[in-house]
Structure formats: structure tokens, C-alpha cells
């Protein structure tokens, strides 16, 4: 275990890569079919989020704002802006759901979302997501929990073939799809909540999306209660699984901190074998495990002499580090956006909560950077190798198609890291 400092002692953030709770909640609502995320705050929060996600996913993003002004900030308890927003949204489009989430502004003025939501005669899920608390990951988790608590119907019936997957915010659309397929290969029907794998996976839609185009259906969410199993991935999603279990006392739960690398994927495979009583997984999975083993061996020559800086949301960071450490890379610095018990699991030399200034100050300690798009300038300035991962990434296209999890993604990820490190060494 390395040296862990969870507290950022600086009075400010310099070059932050942390993102906000409302943005995380927006993303979660975009994983629901025909949903309109409605951010309760001033226009800017929504506009920033829209531009950010549009550029990352290279897709049109549906989102609306309650457009709080200086006057409504003082005089309105949220009632007028929210009720008016719903009226204006539904006059133009017919969403299956409105995902109402707050911001720092509306939390500070103390709007009671629950009370206002009760006045709205339209399918709506509300969630409190002040941006002076938590970050992207917790915003996504809070919205998911709200979807469960406010939509899923309680039941005592159980469908043993049905699995609910609760992915953390940093799993890309294709990663969610691959995890769904992995579990489905054992004979289950898998539903993900939220499900970006069918909404923001980079498919060419029929028209400019006025609402989210794809994702889990609202009716499917309502009936999630009869699933025999719930699988949560990432510690931020644990509370969501517990909320779902409250809807049905007979539902069983299996939690994974991450599904990255050999050990992480083995845990999922072993559990699925035990559940199904099968001796061996489907052949494709067996072959991908061998390919990952081979990639670990092929990559270890390079990775073994590579010192890595990894940055990310806690759940994502834990998986990335685990995968790299397993293949012999030296994770000398791991920086998380916010504190999380997950960080205790990272076997890096130095694990901290911080910003890119911290990364810059520690620049003598690493050769390869694994982090989001803001790391491009950092890597360029410091002449480091770079593998772009996480949100946002405006430097590259194809973000929804990047996969690092399970045996398959792990193999691709290690090869990319080894090749990138080698290229810099070769030309450095």
C-alpha cells in the first residue's frame, strides 16, 4: 500500500479534472430512453454540460434548463421555473420521463424539489445534486438511485433469469454493452440502469435527437423489481443496489469494485459459474482470457519499466490501476477527483485526491499518463507518453467505443499502454 492522502490541503484547485454532480446526473438521465434531463439552475450550468457532452460523444445531447434568473433566484421557490419548464418542454416534445436535478445555485437558495415535483402532472424523477458536494461519479449514482426509488414498483415476485446491471459513470457505452453480453452469455436477460450502451454509443440516428435516443425504457425501469440478481460495478453504485433490494426482499446482490484486468474479470466469471452451476464459460470468454494473458506477457517488457500517472473518478481509477499493476506497470502516482474508500484498494506508490497541478508537481515520478483530455496539454508540456481515458476527451473521436474492461478490453488496454510507452521511449 502506498502513501494515501485523501485531503486536498490547497485553498483552490489549479487545472481541475474534477467534474460536477449535476453533470453526472445529466449523463445518467441520458441513459433512459426518450428522457429529457432538466437541470434546475442558471442557464450556464446546462449550456456548459451540453457543450461538454456534445464534444465528448460527438452526438447531439438533449438537455434543458429551468433558467433561474436573479429575480427567480430570490422570489421563486423553484415552483414557477420548474412547472413552467415542464410545460414548455412538453409543448414541443413528448418525453417518456423528465429527469429534474438541482445545482449549487438552487440548493443554496433551498428549493424543495420533492414538493415541487409533487405538483407536476408528468412522469418526472427528481434528485438533489449540489455541485459543491461530490463529483461526476456521485451525481450519476444519486440520479440512478432516484430512478430506482421513484420509479421501480415494489414486488415479491422473482424472475431468476433476469439480471440488473448497475454500472458506474465512467464505464463507456461499449463497456456497458460488453458487460451485458458477458453476463447474458451465461443465459441471463440483462438490463442496465442507466444504459448508455444504446443511447450514446455513437450510432447514427434517424434525426437530430430532441430527446435521448436509446437507453433503458421507463416501463422497463418500473418492472426491474422482479430481477433475481442485481450486479453493481463500482463502489459509488452500491447504494443503488441496496435501494433496488428494498423494492424486493428476495432479490440477491453481487458487488464488484471494478471489472478490469484478469483478477477482476475472473471474479465475475467465477460468480456466474457458481450461480449457473456451469463448469466452464462459453468458448468466446475462454479464448479472450487467453488473449488477455498473452497481452499481459507481451506487454510486460514495456510496462515493467514504465512508471504511470493515472487520473480519474475513484471507481474508474481503481480499475485502471488494478489492470496496469497486474501487468507489472508501476503506478507511481494515482490522483482521484474526490475521496472514496475505493482509493484504499489502489496499490500505487502515491494515491491522492487532487488536480493537474499536483500531477505537474510530481512530474519526475512517471513516464506515461493515463487520464482525460486535459492531460493532452500536460503530456505535451512535460514530454510524457499519453493514453487518453475518462471524461471528457475532445482530443480524439471514438470515445464511446473505447473498451478497457473484462478480458477483452483489458487486452486492448494493456497493448495500447505498452505501445504508447514504447513509442515515446523509442523517439524520446
Amino acid at each position: 500500500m502506498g502513501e494515501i492522502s485523501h485531503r486536498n490541503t490547497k485553498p483552490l484547485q489549479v487545472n481541475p479534472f474534477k467534474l460536477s454532480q449535476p453533470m453526472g446526473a445529466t449523463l445518467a438521465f441520458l441513459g433512459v430512453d426518450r428522457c429529457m434531463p432538466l437541470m434546475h439552475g442558471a442557464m450556464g450550468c446546462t449550456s456548459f454540460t451540453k457543450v461538454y457532452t456534445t464534444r465528448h460523444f460527438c452526438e447531439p445531447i438533449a438537455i434543458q434548463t429551468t433558467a433561474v434568473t436573479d429575480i427567480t433566484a430570490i422570489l421563486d421557490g423553484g415552483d414557477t421555473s420548474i412547472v413552467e419548464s415542464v410545460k414548455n418542454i412538453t409543448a414541443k416534445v413528448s418525453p417518456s420521463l423528465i429527469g429534474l436535478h438541482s445545482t449549487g445555485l438552487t440548493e443554496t437558495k433551498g428549493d424543495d424539489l420533492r414538493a415541487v415535483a409533487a405538483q407536476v402532472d408528468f412522469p418526472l424523477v427528481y434528485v438533489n445534486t449540489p455541485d459543491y458536494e461530490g463529483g461526476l461519479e456521485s451525481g450519476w449514482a444519486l440520479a440512478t438511485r432516484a430512478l430506482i426509488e421513484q420509479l421501480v414498483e415494489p414486488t415479491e415476485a422473482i424472475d431468476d433469469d433476469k439480471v440488473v446491471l448497475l454500472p458506474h459513470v465512467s464505464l463507456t457505452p461499449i463497456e456497458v454493452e460488453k458487460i451485458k453480453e458477458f453476463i447474458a452469455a451465461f443465459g441471463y436477460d440483462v438490463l442496465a440502469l442507466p444504459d448508455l450502451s444504446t443511447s450514446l454509443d455513437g450510432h447514427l440516428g434517424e434525426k437530430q435527437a430532441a430527446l435521448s435516443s436509446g437507453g433503458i425504457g421507463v416501463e422497463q425501469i418500473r418492472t426491474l423489481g422482479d430481477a433475481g440478481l442485481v450486479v453493481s460495478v463500482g463502489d459509488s453504485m452500491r447504494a443503488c443496489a441496496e435501494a433496488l433490494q428494498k423494492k424486493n426482499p428476495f432479490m440477491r446482490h453481487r458487488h464488484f469494485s471494478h471489472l478490469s484486468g484478469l483478477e477482476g474479470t475472473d471474479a465475475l466469471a467465477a460468480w456466474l459459474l457458481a450461480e449457473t452451476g456451469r463448469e466452464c464459460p462459453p468458448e468466446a470468454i475462454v479464448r479472450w482470457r487467453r488473449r488477455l494473458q498473452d497481452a499481459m506477457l507481451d506487454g510486460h517488457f514495456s510496462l515493467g519499466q514504465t512508471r504511470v500517472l493515472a487520473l480519474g473518478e475513484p471507481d474508474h481509477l481503481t480499475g485502471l490501476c488494478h489492470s496496469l499493476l497486474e501487468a507489472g506497470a508501476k503506478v507511481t502516482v494515482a490522483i482521484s477527483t474526490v475521496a472514496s474508500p475505493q482509493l484504499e484498494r489502489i496499490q500505487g506508490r502515491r494515491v491522492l485526491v487532487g488536480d493537474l497541478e499536483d500531477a505537474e508537481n510530481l512530474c519526475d515520478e512517471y513516464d506515461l499518463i493515463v487520464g482525460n483530455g486535459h492531460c493532452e496539454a500536460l503530456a505535451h508540456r512535460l514530454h510524457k507518453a499519453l493514453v487518453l481515458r475518462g471524461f471528457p476527451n475532445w482530443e480524439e473521436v471514438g470515445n464511446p467505443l473505447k473498451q478497457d474492461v473484462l478480458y477483452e478490453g483489458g487486452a486492448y488496454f494493456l497493448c495500447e499502454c505498452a505501445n504508447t510507452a514504447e513509442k515515446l521511449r523509442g523517439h524520446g
Partner: protein
Amino acid sequence: MATKPKIKELLEESACSHHKTKKTSCNAPTPGATTGGCAFEGAQISLFPYADAAHLVHGPITCLAASWETRATKTSHTGRDFTQMGFTTDIANTDVVFGGEQKLLNAIDYILQHYSPEAIFVYATCVTALIGDDIDAVCRQAAEKYGLPVVPVHAPGFVGSKNLGSRLGGEAALMHLIGTLEPEFTTPFDINLIGEYNVTGDMWQYSHLLDELGIRILSTLSGDGRVRAIRSAHRARLNVIVCAKSLISLTRKMEEKYGIPHISLSFYGKRDTSAGLLAIAEALGDADLIERTKRLIVREEAALEEKLAPYRALFRGKKAVLNTGGNKTWSIAAALQDLGIEVVATAVKKATEADREKAREVLGEKGVLMMNPGAEQARIIEERGAHLLLAGGRSLYTAIKKGIAFADVNQEKKKSYGGYNGLLNLAEDLKNALENPVFKNVAKRAPWEK
């Protein structure tokens, strides 16, 4: 020290052309039916290009985390480029409850100790404005302690639109910077460039021409800007507003306070660039300068025509629909016409009344001014037989559906389309769009689709 700017005054700008017909320029946004940025964003846009000043955002993480490193405001500053850095107090729950002034003060200390900027801009945001942090007092205290400008920027998001925010940014510069330093020397041809943010290096497409004519850019607000320069802006002979109308209040006030006249122009396209250069020379009122400018325009236009010749044949008879906002509704339209492309429609939904008038002038009577481009553009493409759609990324689907070429002209563009040389960049991008088979190939049906 100056007090907070009066927002009501800024909303009723007497120098705006719509002032006679409409009481306010920035109507309140409609909840649930609004897109566009907030005042904070506008203030940042107007001041961010000062690369030697640190920009400290006093608020929760949203405001800065989603706004730093988003704009390609190029700078020639040789030190650390603060336009590509983000500083925020990232206030937490406890700050909301107990106030964030001490944290702000500590953050300013930290920046000055670690980065030694020429100045610090401190931006209020919705939350810190609502909890009542006195950023004026904190800035005053820090300015006295360190002996350099620490400028409070009062543009929390909820006060209004991006446009208003830019004005508030301009007000901050006017109250705290302009007139606080004397230039080392002056010339009869000193000008300030106002509202040019040097996105993708637009300013550098024409600044060398001004230089050649002996016109000195004394200061800018704020493209490739320097804090020392803007502090001495009050000694300029002329204020030149480039494209953006948002800083017209600032130039009016500078006229009243320092007697500096202003003109407004655009450097997009051949005709506008030439007209702009001449307008500056004429406003400076020197016969010899005007003569030299005319000669330079003849030379530059001839050189441009030669380089454009290969594109002319390709663009002959081509029609375009333009869906963008603000001054781009007409400035890019004029640039397209310079390339020999007919502009059949332009969107005026997000334009001011002055911009709409100008768009009508540029497009002529036959041109369509789209008030609801999202719904109208597909029909117009069909009716007029357009070959090209220039818009933001969201309109890509319309282009694919109609099987015509598409060019992205939104703020994230990587190349400059400004000045004479920028027109060549635009021509090259449009050529690539028109010749790219992807629009036709992507529209092909799958074997299983009928």
C-alpha cells in the same frame, strides 16, 4: 474604488440600434426552452484571452471545470499561458454555510506565490453571489497587499445571458484597469481592438497588415491581450470594435470619459477585411495613411484572387444555407459570397436586431432569414437546391438526410477564417466538404433496408 456595475444600465444601451424600439436587449430566458450560455461564461470569454493574468473562479466546480481549456484563444505571450489554465476556489458545503471569503483570499495568495501573474481576475458565480461573499473587499485587500490589479468581475450566471456577461467583463476592465497606467509613448495611429478574442488566431490574420500601415495596436480587449497594455488603453486615438456588439457600452463610456471615438467592423471575408482596414485609416483621418491603405488593399486582394482562382471553378453555381448565430449570420455569409457561393438562407434566430438588418443587406431580397432554422433549413435546402450546409454539429443530420455537404462553423473550429488568409482556409474546408464522398456513402441504405 468603483462600485458594482449597474446591470439595468447595461441592458438599456443607448448606443445599440434597437434602443428606440425595444426597452431591453436581453429578454429573460424561458424556463425549459432556452439554450445558450450565462453571464459568467460571457465575462470569462471577454477577459480570458489576457494570458498574463490569472483567472480565478470563486464558485463550485461546475463553473470552471466545464470551461477551462475550451476555447482556442491563441496568445503570443512567452510566459506560462494562463488562458489555458484553470483556477477555482471549488467551494464546498462548509463554504456555503460559513462563507468563502477567507478561502478566496488564501487562493489569491497561493496564485501570487506560485504563478506571479500581472493581475488576477476574480469571478463571482451564482452560489458565491447568493451567499454574499464580498469579493470587492477581498480583491481590494489583495491588491493593496501585493500592489497589482486584483479585479472583481461581477457576472454571476443568473444575472443574464452570455452577451450581458461580456459587457460586465468589459465594465470590470473599465473600472479597474483602463486608465491606471500611462503608455511609454504614443503615436498618432494608436488603436484599441475591442471584442476580438483571437479565437484560432483570427486577430493575427490582419494585425500584420495594420502593423505594415504603421497603425499600432495599443491594447486589446482582449485577444492576445496584456494587462499592462489595457491599463494604458485610454491614450488610444480610436476604438475598433471587431464583430462583437457586446462591448459597445464600454466604447461609449470610453468616448465620454476619454474622448476616444469608435467604429465597428468585421474582418471576415475579402470585402469586409478591405472595408475594415479602410474604415480604420479614414477614422484616423490621415490622408497619407488612407492612400497607403488603399494601395495595400489592392495588393492584398490581387494576391488573394490569384490564390482563390483554383477554387472559383468548383464554387461556381453552388448554393449554401448558413445556420449560425450572432454576427456570424452575416459575416460568414459575406465571406461565402466572396468565394462566389450564393447564400440562399441564413439563420437570424440568435442575432441582434442590428445583425438582422445587416444580414438582410448582405443576402439581398431573395435571401431567406430563418427565424426557426431547426425546422426551416431542411425545406429550404430542398426548395432552393442548396449544395452546402454550414452550421453547428447538431445540424449534421439535416445534411446527411439531404445528401449534401456539411461544414462545421461553430466555436470549436480549429482554423481561423478571418482576414484575407482566413478566406483561403474557409475555401479549402468547403472544397474538402464538397468533394468528400462520406455524405453520400453514409446515406446509403443497408442491404436489409428497403
